[in-house]
């Protein structure tokens, strides 16, 4: 897998040749990635089914999955639009959720080719999942392998799931009123399933609570869809917490850098 004589610089250049990243895929990584991407397929399936059952044309969830390829924002866009929110507002809400792509992209910038169409493909394959498998790794070749493997596999399975789900939603579920099936509860349930794992610290929980309060308070005054956007104000309650966490992160970062420097010498 790793040749003893290979330097980082050489690995860098080799990595840009097609196919070579796969040499660095090990068994355990493959198993973990497969598990996560299979879970992604299930989420994609529910997305396609719920979207079509809520009244979008069949191709909408399929197209969204291909061109947006970011689960939470797709769910939010469809939920808001089918609920009667102005599509542009729904899109902006999704964009706010996808703002996290920027720090994720900064974290995995080294695996994104410098130029050409492969840079564009790599950018599109950036997701929570591909970043999560890439970030903890140090070796450049391993990082590249983890990123491309997760990105490509998730893209294929996510879209396959959405397509199958949309067809199911259009045939099996279409005969019944979505309200009778309780499908209107599916959207908030999905968002909750995405939210809860992100509530790790007291600051997170305070931010979530403040966001919820602001959103509810805004319902009578703002047009549909905007209350949830107003919830960004909830982040203000966490300002002290965030900066404290930032300080803690910086310390950890310095430790890691020191350790890396020590290891390299």
């Amino acid at each position: 897998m790793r040749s003893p004589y290979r330097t980082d610089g050489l690995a860098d250049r080799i990595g840009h040749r097609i196919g070579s990243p796969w040499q660095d895929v090990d068994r355990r990584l493959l198993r973990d990635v497969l598990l996560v991407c299979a879970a992604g397929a299930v989420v994609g399936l529910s997305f396609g089914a719920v979207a079509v059952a809520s009244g979008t044309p069949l191709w909408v969830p399929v197209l969204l999955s291909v061109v947006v390829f970011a689960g939470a924002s797709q769910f939010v866009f469809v939920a808001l639009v089918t609920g009667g929110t102005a599509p542009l507002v729904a899109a902006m809400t999704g964009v706010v959720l996808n703002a996290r792509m920027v720090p994720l992209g900064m974290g995995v910038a080294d695996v994104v080719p410098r130029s050409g169409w492969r840079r564009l493909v790599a950018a599109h394959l950036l997701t929570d999942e591909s970043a999560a498998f890439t970030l903890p790794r140090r070796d450049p070749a391993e990082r590249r392998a983890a990123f491309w493997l997760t990105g490509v596999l998730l893209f294929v399975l996510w879209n396959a799931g959405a397509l199958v789900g949309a067809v199911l939603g259009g045939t099996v579920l279409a005969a019944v009123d979505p309200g009778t099936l309780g499908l209107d509860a599916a959207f908030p349930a999905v968002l909750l399933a995405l939210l809860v794992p992100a509530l790790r610290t007291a600051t997170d929980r305070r931010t979530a609570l403040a966001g919820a309060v602001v959103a509810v308070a805004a319902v009578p005054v703002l047009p549909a869809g905007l209350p949830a956007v107003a919830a960004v104000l909830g982040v203000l309650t966490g300002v002290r917490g965030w900066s404290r966490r930032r300080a803690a992160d910086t310390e950890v970062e310095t430790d890691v850098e020191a350790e890396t420097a020590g290891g390299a010498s």
Partner: protein
Amino acid sequence: MTWGVEHWVGLAVLAVATFALRLLGPWLAARIGGGARAESTDALLAGLAVAVLAGLVVTQSLFDGRDLVGWARPLGVVVAGLLVWRKAPFLVVVLAAAATTALVRLLGLS
């Protein structure tokens, strides 16, 4: 629903803006460096996502536009919340939420 021009525009804006955000990270990293900066930006934007998701969960659970939705949907979401807390699989959470809401409606509560 009918998929009109404004829906197309919304879809295009979401897709293009998301792609731009994906390109922005590597572009910024090349200019101001990744690492520590990425982590501090990450903390703030993660907070942003948490706030918006929480706002969406409550508004989507309780309201249709400005009107309260009744009991069935919130009860479904509460069941989902309990299952998420117990770390149930995603599909179980979604199906249980829909089933609860459907059942409550079947019992006559809207």
